[in-house]
């Protein structure tokens, strides 16, 4: 399961260590040698596996159930990646249309939710590439500007975040990040992908991914330090 699931995030220490690859939430339990010779039991009627199987067989009602089960997660992912409600709606629609076209090809090599999540990310990335967010622009975004050099924190007033962050203010600050920064921050820090996975998805180097994530966090830090404490609106 990725970080954006409904499960609480597990404690990570030290907190800035790369998070684990998105875990597989519906992965079949490892089976012993004896179990390998047995045919798995059919899914229980009404279970997630049953809904999936029926949707794969073309049951429209089951597909609607899948939509209900996953719409929030996919829409939230799209919204965070693009930072725009109208685009997020279009991308969510496109992701579920692609799901409908491809669902029969799902073979269960990974969890369905992981597969769908990756499909949605690909839809968003395709969209962003069409809009012109290429690796080149990602690299350009990482070039230090005079105000973003590594030493920019020098002499900064000692206004620590004091270990607490308003969630809504953070959501808004993420939405305000430049597209390249936002993409990597969302994929790494929220969705739980590792730098090598992000580099593969975005066709950039692992170093670029690390650098861009760092700059995204610096930008968020600046944004959060200027948020009035009372602020909580979105």
């Amino acid at each position, binding site marked *: 399961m990725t970080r954006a699931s409904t499960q609480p995030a597990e404690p990570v220490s*030290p*907190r800035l260590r790369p*998070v684990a690859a998105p875990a597989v939430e519906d992965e079949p339990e490892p089976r012993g040698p004896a179990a390998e010779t047995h045919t798995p039991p059919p899914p229980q009627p009404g279970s997630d596996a049953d809904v999936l199987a029926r949707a794969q067989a073309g049951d429209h009602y089951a*597909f609607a159930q899948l939509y209900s089960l996953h719409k929030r997660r996919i*829409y939230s992912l799209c919204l965070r990646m693009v930072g725009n409600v109208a685009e997020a709606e279009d991308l969510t629609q496109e992701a579920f249309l692609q799901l409908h076209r491809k669902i029969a090809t799902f073979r269960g090599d990974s969890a369905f939710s992981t597969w769908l999540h990756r499909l949605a990310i690909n839809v968003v990335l395709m969209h962003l590439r069409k809009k012109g967010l290429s690796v080149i622009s990602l690299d350009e975004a990482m070039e230090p500007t005079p105000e973003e050099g590594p030493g920019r924190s020098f002499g900064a007033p000692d206004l620590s975040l004091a270990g607490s*962050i308003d969630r809504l203010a953070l959501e808004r600050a993420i939405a305000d990040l430049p597209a390249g920064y936002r993409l990597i921050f969302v994929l790494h820090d*929220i969705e739980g992908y590792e730098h090598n996975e992000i580099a593969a998805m975005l066709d950039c180097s*692992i*170093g670029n991914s690390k650098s861009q994530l*760092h700059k995204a966090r610096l930008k968020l830090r600046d944004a959060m330090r200027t948020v009035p404490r009372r602020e909580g609106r979105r």
Partner: protein
Amino acid sequence: MTQDRYNMTCEEFQAQMPELIGSGEDAGSHPHVLNCALCRALLSDLETIAEAARQLFPVEDPPDHLWDQIESAIKQEHEPSRK
């Protein structure tokens, strides 16, 4: 770039931060961090942001009409083309 971990400037340390953090090393135990309040505060803030991000859940539901649009698009795709 100076590689002496014990005699780094803040600029040198901060230039190495993306790699240091991204590699999973415990940046908090770096000699420069132990001796520099500024970089320690910076690291602490970045940790706070990363931690807060991990606790963000999907909070937004798409509008109700989105399913109607998806359903309509699916029907269109499956409709036999007419001449």
